[in-house]
């Protein structure tokens, strides 16, 4: 029952806030259980989804397809992990409980967003996830978090207004907001200026939401200043679902691939890939570097999507999933480093791999996965994206993507050199591994990365359908 995925978090929030003291302590296990249920659900329906079996449900008609279930799985994994991080870093019990409630709401928002097939409902759930994240970012009420939250809020509000305006225009055109009806109406008048305005507004809003360059201004601030658990959730999945997933879904189901959309995606994708990587190269704050890296990786997803071929789309979705895993892992490790050393400034760190071996090794795996070093999961998605670009005839963009993966490796090597590798820096001698609440999720995510990477040649035919026989 997909609607349970939205209703259960709501019920959890309502029940946990009944005026009974012991309930508060149940919040954490409840969150973990919910995430596990969701992961199991997503994995359970995945084969059926891939086989193309439609599901009948009142609210979410035909909601389950491979894209949706992959996203549901990613949401579950990232939420699971960030609850651990929350436990390790939130501090005060009361605040931890409040933040957990908001995490429930954010997850409900993302699940709804992934499941709906209606433009306006998409807007509603998108706002739900966003509002929960603004508040979470500002949760510690420190200056940096507030600043990041305010910037995110303003840009996000602007983006949703653009989308709503577009929804209004499309409503006037088609008399409905369901994906199918709008897509039909759009097809009938594909090249009309009115339609192009509506499309442009919507795509613009989604690009702002995804933090694509040059609309990225809010993203590094929000990621780097947020509390550790929140930046894990935000970077791993929230902005990916609210921005990138929505973009993929709408382009696939509603807008279709016109040469104009393709060009738009290619250009913004290419700018993000290269400029994001270059900006990351110049950072000294660990989380900021990861944020720029995120922008760069979103660029890859757009490039894959832009090809419009089955291979490219599957690769983009796969990269989205991979990105959720490895970026979450990196943010968890950044949280561990910050917690143990008290700083994120990479110039003050060094040699931590010897002091925190688990953090060091898992970070390395995540970085290599991002850079596309085999045999990790990120390699396959990047390979498929590049191959899709090449086979679709976008040779220049393929070359660009390959070149940028060199940049990716360069900035991650610099991070690795300054934080983990090298000699132990003065002041870091007594650093120890963070507690199990941070190492356990790291190990889990690293296992997924390696497992998916090694098993992919066999998984690819089963779960990434269009890629079969590539």
């Amino acid at each position, binding site marked *: 029952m997909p609607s349970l995925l939205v209703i259960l978090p709501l019920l959890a929030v309502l029940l946990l806030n009944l005026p009974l003291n012991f309930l508060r302590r149940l919040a954490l296990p409840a969150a973990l259980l919910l995430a596990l249920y969701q992961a199991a659900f997503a994995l359970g329906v995945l084969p059926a989804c891939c086989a193309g079996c439609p599901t009948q449900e009142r609210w979410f008609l035909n909601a389950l397809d491979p894209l949706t279930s992959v996203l549901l799985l990613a949401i579950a994994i990232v939420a699971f992990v960030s609850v651990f991080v929350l436990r390790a870093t939130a501090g005060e019990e009361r605040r931890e409980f409040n933040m957990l409630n908001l995490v429930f709401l954010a997850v409900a928002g993302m699940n709804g967003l992934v499941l709906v097939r209606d433009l306006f409902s998409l807007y509603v759930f998108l706002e739900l996830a966003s509002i929960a994240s603004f508040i979470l970012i500002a949760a510690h009420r420190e200056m940096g978090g507030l600043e990041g939250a305010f910037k995110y809020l303003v840009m996000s509000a602007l983006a949703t207004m653009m989308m709503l305006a577009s929804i209004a225009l499309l409503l006037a055109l088609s008399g409905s907001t369901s994906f199918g009806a709008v897509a039909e109406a759009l097809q009938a008048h594909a090249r009309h200026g009115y339609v192009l305005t509506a499309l442009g507004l919507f795509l613009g809003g989604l690009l702002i939401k995804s933090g694509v360059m040059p609309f990225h201004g809010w993203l590094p601030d929000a990621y780097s200043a947020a509390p550790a658990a929140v930046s894990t959730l935000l970077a791993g999945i929230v902005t990916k679902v609210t921005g990138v997933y929505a973009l993929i879904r709408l382009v696939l189901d509603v807008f279709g691939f016109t040469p104009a959309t393709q060009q738009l995606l290619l250009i913004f994708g290419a700018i993000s890939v290269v400029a994001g990587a270059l900006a990351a190269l110049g950072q000294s704050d660990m989380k900021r570097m990861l944020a720029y890296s995120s922008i760069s990786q979103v660029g890859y997803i757009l490039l894959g999507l832009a090809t419009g071929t089955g291979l490219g789309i599957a690769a983009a979705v796969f990269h989205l999933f991979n990105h959720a895993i490895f970026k979450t892992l990196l943010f968890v490790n950044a949280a561990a480093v910050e917690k143990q050393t008290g700083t994120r400034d990479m110039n003050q760190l060094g040699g931590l791999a010897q002091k925190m071996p688990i953090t060091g090794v898992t970070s390395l795996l995540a970085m*290599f996965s991002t850079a596309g070093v085999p045999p990790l999961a990120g390699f396959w998605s990047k390979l498929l994206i590049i191959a899709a670009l090449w086979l679709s005839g976008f040779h220049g963009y393929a*070359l660009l993507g390959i070149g940028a993966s060199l940049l990716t490796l360069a900035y991650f090597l610099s991070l690795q050199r300054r934080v983990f*590798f*090298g000699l132990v820096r003065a002041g870091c001698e007594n650093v120890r591994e963070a507690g199990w609440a941070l190492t356990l999720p790291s190990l889990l995510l690293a296992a997924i990365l390696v497992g998916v990477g090694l098993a992919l040649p066999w998984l690819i035919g089963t779960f990434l359908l269009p890629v079969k026989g590539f």
Partner: protein
Amino acid sequence: MSLDTIMLLVVVVPVFGSLLLPLVGKVCKSTRNGLALLLVLVSLAGSLMLIGPVMSGKVITLTFPTGFGQMMLMADRLAVFMALVSSLVGAIIVFYSWGYISHYENQNEYYLLVVLFLGAMMGLVFAANLLILYIFWEITAIASWRLIGFFRSPAIVLRADKSFLVTFFGATMMLLGFIMVREQAGSWDLPAIKAALVGHPLSSAAVALILLGILSKSATLPLQTWLPDAGVAPSPVTALLHAAVLVKIGVYAYARLFVVNMPLPEIWQTIVPAIAGVSALVAAGAALLETDLKRLIAFSTISQIGFIFLGLSIGGELALAGGLLYILMHGVAKGGLFLCAGIVEQNTHCKDITKLGGLIKTMPVTAIAFLICTFSVIGIPPLGGFFSKYMVIAGAAKGPHLWIVLSFVGTAFLTIIYLMRVFVMVFMGEPKTELKSEGSPVMVWSVALLALLSIAGGLLIYYPSFFATEATRQILGLIP
């Protein structure tokens, strides 16, 4: 045990076994050292067991059905030859490490990476699928990155990153080339590609991109810069990296891809030897000026790689067989040189040849081993290096490009000059540093073994050259 299982074990045992080493190392150090050697010896033994079948003309294949279509491992004579060379030198290097690395921290990491590296090398050798080849290719790059940065001081780590970036750049370009091959031939599998490319030569862009990857890995001009810098690594590592295995990966990939499976258009038979010639000559010149012992030997490696490329790319049975033989002889001899350099460095704490001298008095075995290996690299009969160099040059002389051959002859003379200069400056003359005795027995035995192998390679030249010739005939399709 069937033959394809043996082939699989040769790859899988060291790759996955290496992951156990840090765990074992936490419990007992000597068990870990023994296990590390054992893992490499399994590869060596497996490769030895494959000799018989492949020499009788068999090609052993193992296919996995995957979402990317078939994925293949394949053992033919070329692969088994290469596997033998690398696992042989690798085993000696691991043995030498017992002595050398025991002075340093992070030994668990060291053994993990060395064995993983050798395992990945085995995988690369038996790969008959472009994706598998690429994966193992990058694993070797990762392992060598960590090994170069082993001592962890900022300058060293920076150089490690540099070498990783250069090889990664080459590898990604190669990957793009592979994608182009895939587009043209419709498969990642080498046999299928070979069949598809009959009559349709590969596009020049794909060849150039793949060549970029190969050149970066084998440190050939213009992507040679990382290799001399990599000399900051622990000595056995540089020996492993430079001499025995890493740079040979590029050479082997060239043979595997362009000689065996994707015949190149005519024009590349001029371009590649010309690149090799320039690279060999320039690197020899650089070696002549260098005073850092390990950097000098590294430049010498770049120079010698040029000879191998010449043998493989110029065409003709004699040159090709010479090139293969060169891989073996150079691996053994250059490994010996590096390990000797390691002993010298560890005992005197000095790598500058102008500040060394007279070491033969206290380190006779090391000195003689160094001399023998030097002779082998130079190509003095009856050592192994002579035959391979002779075959390459003689084979190339049959070809149309006399000027390329002449440049290589010039390089060979330069080799004599710079290597003898090293020997004289380090081991002869007046002692300039405090004299130390020989290194630990394990280390001395290792270099002596390599020197003996160099001699044996010359005296018993019949066996390796028979193997190389047979492999060549199989490559050229003269026999099935």
